[in-house]
């Protein structure tokens, strides 16, 4: 597991060229590990006729069999014994079905390296104490949703004085804590310490509207930060128009676009992508991103297709190369102008027609019968 560890503790997180060789070795090492420890993964590799010899250089990593998240929602694949698993998470399940994810010690160690590298590069980590507004669930033993943990973990990036949660755990249920948030914000403003907001863009928009309705206008500490989990987790029903959001934030909180940072990751691909000053998601050294066409073949920059994410981070589950159900497009790093040379990708939306309801019976209803029936 040496190549993988080395990759995740490199400091220069956007110099892809310099790490190509190391990434190539690490991903092969990772696939070998999963093949030996996850029988189902081994079956997939052999069914797809894959051999590690096919991947001679980094340019060949597209040949690694891709596993769609759609498949992972039906099957939990593990490459480590249950007793070694920690930090279990599930997706927030917008589609109803959930993916499972768990880290073992080795994956978690790499995750730590990545978080350090990312926070230092993006200056998210700060030794100065801050007050937190978490626009999500208060963590509890019962709640395994990945986003809760990410949000909670992020509150340690700067020492936390106080944390206020939008969805408060009463012990038996979660309640919307808008009054608590408003009171906390008024207190935070008086204290004069930086404030950090963590949550989804739609939640943040909701908060801003609540503040407007209550006639609250704040001038928060200029070093305050708004961290938003963006990308494919944004709520399509209420697509937040970024410039509008930034302007509202400047108006209501005194914090403009330069204090708003977006990041995202997927449960099946727990790499943290942070946006650059131009709000683009550049690919860090921990992963490689391939866009694929309808025949699963890779396409170049500027051509939209399906988003395939590749990383050797996980040793607990065979998520070396996963395909999300997003459509995306790659752009060369130079096009951005922020100075980061690695390419960046833009998520265009989800594939398909999830929202269409037709009169054909849906799979889940029939599945219930299959399970219950004497077939």
């Amino acid at each position, binding site marked *: 597991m040496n190549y993988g560890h080395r990759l995740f503790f490199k400091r220069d997180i956007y110099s892809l060229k310099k790490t190509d060789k190391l990434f190539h070795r690490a991903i092969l090492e990772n696939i070998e590990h999963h093949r030996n420890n996850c029988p189902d993964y081994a079956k997939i590799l052999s069914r797809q006729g894959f051999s590690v010899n096919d991947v001679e250089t980094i340019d060949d990593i597209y040949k690694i069999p891709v596993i769609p998240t*759609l498949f992972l929602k039906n099957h939990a694949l593990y490459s480590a014994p249950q007793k070694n698993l920690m930090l279990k998470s599930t997706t927030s399940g917008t589609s109803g079905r959930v993916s499972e994810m768990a880290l073992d010690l080795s994956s978690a160690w790499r995750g730590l390296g990545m978080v350090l590298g990312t926070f230092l590069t993006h200056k998210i980590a700060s030794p100065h104490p801050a007050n937190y507004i978490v626009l999500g669930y208060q963590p509890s033993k019962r709640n395994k949703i990945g986003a809760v943990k990410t949000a909670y973990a992020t509150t340690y990036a700067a020492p936390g004085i106080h944390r206020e949660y939008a969805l408060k755990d009463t012990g038996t249920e979660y309640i919307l804590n808008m009054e608590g948030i408003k009171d906390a914000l008024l207190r935070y403003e008086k204290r004069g310490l930086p404030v950090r907001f963590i949550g989804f863009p739609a939640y943040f928009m909701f908060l801003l509207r609540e503040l407007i309705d209550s006639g609250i206008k704040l001038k928060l500490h200029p070093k305050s930060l708004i961290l938003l989990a963006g990308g494919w987790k944004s709520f399509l029903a209420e697509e937040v128009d970024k410039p509008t959001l930034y302007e509202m934030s400047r108006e209501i909180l005194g914090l403009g676009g330069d204090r708003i940072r977006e990041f995202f990751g997927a449960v099946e691909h727990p790499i943290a992508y942070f946006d650059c000053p131009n709000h683009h998601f550049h690919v860090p050294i921990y992963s490689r991103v391939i866009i694929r066409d309808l025949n699963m073949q890779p396409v170049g920059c500027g051509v939209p297709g399906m988003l395939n994410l590749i990383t050797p981070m996980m040793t607990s589950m065979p998520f070396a190369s996963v395909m999300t159900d997003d459509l995306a497009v790659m752009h060369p790093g130079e096009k951005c102008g922020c100075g980061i040379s690695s390419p960046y990708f833009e998520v265009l939306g989800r594939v398909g027609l999830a*929202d269409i*309801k037709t009169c*054909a019976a849906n*799979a889940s*209803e029939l599945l*219930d019968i299959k399970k219950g*029936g*004497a077939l």
Partner: protein
Amino acid sequence: MNLVNGEILGAKECDVVLEKLEQYILNTLSKERLSSEKVIAACGKVASELDVSEYMDIIRELGIDEALARRYIDDFRNAFGEERLRRRVEVELGSMVGGQVLPLGVLVHIAAGNVDGLPAFSVLEGLLAGNINILKLPAAEGGISVRLLTELIKAEPILAEYIYVFDYSSKDIEHMERLISAADAVVVWGGKEAVSALRRIVPPNVRLIEWGHKISFAYVTEQGITEKGLEGLAKNIADTGQLLCSSLQGIFLDTDDMDKVYEFCSRFLPILSRQLAKHAMKTGIGIKYQTALKLYAEELEGIYKNSRIFKADNCSLIAYPDKILDTSIQFGNAWVRPLPHLELLPVLRPYKNYLQTVGLLCDPSELQLLTDTLFKTGVVRICKGENMSSDHSDAPHDGEYPLRRYTKIVTVDEFL
């Protein structure tokens, strides 16, 4: 959006209407009965003057594929056509011996489905049968239904007091109960969840008329396989995108031999591919990607299901050894499974409430036995492949005549 008496109302005004709903209804009931001819004439006018581009814009805003949108609009025009409606009234409500057919009175429609104009269509059927209709809109339907119904009222102002639309959420139990208290019957469209939720709030003495989701497939015997028959099945797949409740999702073969199943797939695949090349509904890029992704995921599922995929450029057949009824990947991707005719009844019976149409390919000598067995499983319609989703105006839907369900048969003694 709320619509009362031909006018769009806000939420607060609706509460006022709700207070007086019973009074409004009594007022309408005391007048002369609504004639179906007036409804039909209004529909004809709306269908012929329909501004397609305007509706396309709305549907596009809902994020729906353009080809699908066009199909919905065509279907809709078809359904609102005067000829067809007149024929329906004649077939479904005519020739009643020993009684008179009258409207139930007030129907509350709870509609799911966000793009096919179904909510408005449900109201139209209620009107044809002479009822006062209260429609509870589904969430996120883009205002299509209200627009259509408003146009209907413009074409025939008498209809204004027969059409109410309210925008309450199904979770708003208080308002839902209010609406239902005015109803002679509640018409519900949708899946299991929607229907069960409603069953909990509809009182026992109010009639509940369910239109649930259905599934259709083909049954093919060795002797029944002909080039023309297979073309018919392929045509249904190509024409409907496998999206309708009457669309072919997959094919059961009268055999227990997987080699026969593989053989069938090899023979049927080029036929399907040809039909799709000729007739396929043009799908948007989003659907193409979704289909490719599902097909690829299904390929990987092969390690568990022991399935085999037969792929052409524009379509696929997946041969499974199990005997399960399943929705397909759709858009030209069907399943093929073995199912000897002696096992039809035990295998399909658990799906009884979901079965709709079977496209049957068999020898004439097998027809009697197979249709009889299939009807026993719960199937309500058997036809050739190419007719599975064709619109016969006089054919019942899901084994029922909708207009008849919305009426009652009354009798009066001869007093004189």
